[in-house]
């Protein structure tokens, strides 16, 4: 259906005559540029550009040609077009004007300035995160003062979505984690004939460390990201602005119920994770170390005391705030487009998991200083 285009070419039968042939279009212009650059009109007073053999020329072709002609023109040689269609001639004239306009460059930024800008951005980011926490706290105070304004329904819904619906995944993960911990311990303890200590190992590590941590990480990935995406999308579709104009504080409706919901749900999930985790360890202890369920539970009751459970649950309570605050904050930071929603969502998950782990290690240090 389409005959192939004849590639663009140029010939210089004598110094003052350039003959163009073929299609000088984006698709067929090929390497003619390189050939053109090598051509100059050294001795001629006038250069004639013969367009009579030209099939067609578009703005790419004209631009390439004019770029070289400019160099020739700058040497004081005049240029004349011969046998050009009026339309192509018009294109040549427009490009001749335009080609003199210098290209705008992206301003170069020095390394020092980059560091400075980055530092400023981090500072501003931290500051706005702190002010977001402040706003949320104020909103909480308002609600305590006027309990009628507390939105009960969304809160309950969020407890269901973030808490109840997450039971299977949290339970299974903790169960497997309990198995892993007991299995790794079993090997070491058997050497010393200290089989029964697997109870302490599983009990303390699950209750104090692993359960709150793994639950928080799962919920950060599951609910934290959902919060950021939900709020981010609402920013893009101007729902947040609409809320403000109607007179609903977005924080009251979107953030507080989530904070309250997760502050309830995450500690409960952690207790559930404790149960399934220890159950996993118990099953492993029986099959690897010959410790029966009964024996395990008796030892568990006498060795693991309430503080271990409370420390874990207390940590979960703090993690709940982190996850909601970071998720919602990143959601509100969304700007303009769909791309930004994705970026903020990713950021919310990475940041909240990071902060959760940092805090967890801080807690370990503090608790060991307090001899808890």
């Amino acid at each position, binding site marked *: 259906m389409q005959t192939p*285009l004849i590639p663009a070419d140029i010939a210089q039968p004598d110094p003052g005559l350039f003959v163009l042939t073929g299609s000088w279009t*984006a698709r067929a212009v090929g390497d003619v*540029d390189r050939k053109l650059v090598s051509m100059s009109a050294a001795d001629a007073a006038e250069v004639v550009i013969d367009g009579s053999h030209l099939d067609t020329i578009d703005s*790419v072709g004209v*631009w390439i040609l004019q770029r070289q002609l400019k160099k020739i023109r700058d040497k004081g040689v005049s240029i004349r077009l011969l046998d050009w269609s009026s339309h192509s001639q018009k294109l040549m004239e427009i490009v001749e004007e335009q080609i003199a*306009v210098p290209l*705008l460059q992206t301003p170069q930024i020095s390394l020092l300035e980059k560091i400075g800008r980055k530092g400023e951005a981090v500072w501003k980011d931290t500051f706005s995160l702190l002010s977001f926490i402040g706003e949320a706290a104020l909103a909480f105070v308002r609600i305590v003062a006027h309990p009628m304004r507390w939105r009960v329904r969304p809160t309950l819904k969020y407890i269901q979505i973030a808490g109840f619906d997450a039971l299977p995944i949290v339970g299974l993960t903790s169960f497997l984690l309990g198995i892993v911990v007991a299995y790794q311990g079993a090997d070491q303890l058997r050497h010393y004939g200290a089989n029964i200590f697997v109870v302490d190992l599983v009990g303390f590590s699950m209750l104090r460390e692993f359960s709150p941590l793994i639950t928080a990480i799962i919920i950060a990935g599951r609910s934290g990201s959902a919060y950021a995406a939900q709020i981010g999308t609402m920013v893009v579709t101007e729902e947040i602005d609409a809320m403000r104009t109607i007179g609903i504080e977005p924080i009251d409706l979107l953030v507080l119920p989530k904070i309250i919901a997760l502050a309830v749900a995450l500690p409960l999930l952690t207790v559930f994770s404790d149960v399934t985790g220890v159950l996993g360890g118990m099953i492993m202890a029986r099959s690897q170390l010959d410790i029966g369920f009964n024996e395990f539970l008796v030892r568990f009751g006498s060795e693991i005391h309430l503080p271990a459970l409370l420390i874990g649950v207390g940590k979960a309570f703090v993690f709940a705030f982190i996850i909601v605050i970071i998720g919602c904050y990143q959601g509100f930071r969304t700007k303009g487009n769909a791309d930004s929603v994705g970026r903020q969502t990713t950021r919310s998950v990475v940041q909240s998991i990071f902060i959760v782990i940092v805090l967890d290690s801080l807690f370990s240090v503090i608790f060991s200083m307090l001899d808890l």
Partner: protein
Amino acid sequence: MDAVTGQTDAAQANTPNVIEMRKVCTRFGTHSVHTDLDLDVRRGEIFAIVGGSGSGKSTLLREMIMLHRPSSGSIKILGADLQTISEEEAMILRQRWGVMFQHGGLFGTLNVLDNIGLPLREHTRLDDTLINELAAWKLTLSGLKPETGLQYPPELSGGMLKRASLARALAFDPELLFLDEPTAGLDPGGAGGIDTLVRTLHDLYRSTIVIITHDLDLLWQVTDRVAVLGEGKVVGLGSMMELSQMDHPIIRGYFDGPRGRTAQEQAQKLNKE
């Protein structure tokens, strides 16, 4: 035939029509959008497609630019039959037309200049500086300031997005230019600017321009012929002057409203001057 539009393509030189649609039917489930629709667009004209919401204008455009396949019927664009076209031919065809999308369709991760240069960068081996220079020119051609080139699409206003999208559509000096709602959502000044821009580009590139629009001013000011869609067919076809004499209720709906009359008076006043 002039130098720019005269591509070395014998088949299409014989036919004056750039777009030929025959018995096109489009169904979504049981809902029928087009039934046996025929439409021709002649080379070099500024052609507009109008119709109420849901009349299938946008679907028709999507079918022309190979984003949607009609349920039956044939569409020929620049001499190529879209039903039987090979992947290779389709690629060439895509370089011979340009599409300006209603909301810009610019890539959010590239700045405006890179967006405009993208088609050339993707399909030719031209060097980077050349592509940037060309992109900067197309940018000014569509009426944007050179500084805009370094901005990113989310930072632009609706009107600037449309102009940038148009600049990208011009990358290959298209023979055929599709404009989807070029003035929707613009202030009167901005819309007027688009009117002038469409005519300037038509003069410069002599492309055939197909516009989907609701804008009566744009219709009166720039179009050569207009097709009115309704009931799944073309219910009226002709210049705005001819259409304004027709009796079909859908067409009357367009002209008899107060806005229709004002736009017509405005256009006639301009013509007299």
